[in-house]
């Protein structure tokens, strides 16, 4: 059965209150059409796991502007004054996670691990409330895995089966998130016939991908 969906139907499958992982780094590699459609459909009470919230009116920042996000797990909000305002006002609950730890928590969620041991954050405020373990004389924080209901992925190309590759720095968290969510929605710049993406070049295997968003008709 084809994984192809139109944008509206794919986003309609996301309920209010869902936990979303969203790819991207300051908007690069964020699925922008999915962001716009989430706002248009007015989803409520979302939990968003993402590296950052870009800037107001850019990428994930649009979800913040529209007040769709109740809880945010992220590494950096310094470029988005609206996210900071909502956090300080208590409108959005924000958990700040070191970027490398965020990547590994998502990876461990998708790879079936019980978390990761990292030296990052030991002795800082990040350690508060967490277990530490000493291994060979070095102290590590126990960081728990993250999983999501949906991963919203931006890809350079997907083939008809859902094999995916990525472009340059637009890759970032996308392939990690595609492993860690119940339902994976891929917004590709291009959807190409099977075989166009050689097996060695595929980064995210097709079995992980549930929905492909139909590309915009660029000649229409």
């Amino acid at each position, binding site marked *: 059965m084809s994984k192809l969906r139109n944008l509206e139907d794919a986003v309609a499958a996301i309920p209010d209150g869902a936990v979303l992982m969203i790819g991207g*780094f*300051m*908007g*690069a*590699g964020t699925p922008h059409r999915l962001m716009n459609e989430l706002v248009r459909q007015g989803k409520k009470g979302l939990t968003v796991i993402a*590296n*950052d919230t*870009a*800037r107001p009116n850019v990428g994930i920042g649009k979800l913040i502007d529209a007040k769709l996000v109740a809880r945010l797990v*992220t*590494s*950096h*909000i*310094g*470029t988005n004054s609206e996210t*900071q305002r909502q*956090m*300080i006002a208590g409108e959005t609950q924000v958990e*700040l996670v*070191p*970027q*490398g*730890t*965020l*990547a*590994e928590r998502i*990876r461990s969620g998708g790879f079936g691990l019980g978390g990761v041991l*990292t*030296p*990052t*954050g*030991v*002795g*800082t*405020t*990040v350690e508060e409330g967490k277990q530490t373990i000493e291994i060979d004389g070095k102290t590590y924080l126990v960081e728990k895995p993250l999983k999501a209901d949906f991963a919203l992925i931006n890809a*350079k190309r997907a083939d008809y089966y859902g094999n995916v590759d*990525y*472009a*340059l*720095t*637009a*890759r*970032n*968290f*996308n*392939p*990690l998130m595609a492993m860690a969510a119940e339902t994976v929605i891929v917004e590709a710049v291009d959807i190409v016939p099977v075989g166009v993406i050689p097996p060695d070049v595929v*980064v995210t295997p097709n079995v992980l991908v549930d929905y492909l968003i139909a590309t915009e008709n660029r000649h229409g």
Partner: protein
Amino acid sequence: MDEKTLIAKRVALELQDGFLVNLGIGLPTMVAAYLPNNLNVFFQSENGIIGMSALPEQGFALGDLTDAGGAFIGALPGACAFDSATSFGLIRGGHLDVTVLGGLQVDQSGQLANWMVPGKMVPGMGGAMDLVSGAKRVIVAMQHTAKGKSKIVQKCTLPLTSVRRVDLIVTDLAVLQPSEEGLILKETAPGVSIDQVKAATDCELIIPSNVPEMQITE
């Protein structure tokens, strides 16, 4: 020469041929512009690339090729791209030779605070905690004082970025080397006396008998 340029030109001398280097946003980014001639250094941007360069021309801007601040960049021959787990594996796993970061405070024990001011500025740590925990060498590049107050203090009052002791502090007044015993004054900036450095510093410094003037790249 302005103070930031002086700092960037001094830090540039710390980079060696073949190094993998990560430069923080702001002042540290300026270091790339002052590399000694013929030095082949690989710059990593933690959003997933080694081999980043300045954008050659505005017309070449590509939405899928950006730095950690979201700005458009170029890529040098030999550049490679990877996901965020690999990027931080490079950082945390001991593969990164040098990181150059800005600072809010560095204390006598060499600990750095650079990611938040409680109640005022809560940007999040981004990659800073991983960079300080994992890089082989951590260089802090910052102004010695801010609003008349020293950024070199006895004990950091702002939340720490890491408990790891940084390796070198380069300011507009001096080069300081943290050690077990405290901060060693290694160099003074051109035209700056040892007494001026001491007066602008909120903790004891270890002063060797010979403190040369800061050298910088051309």
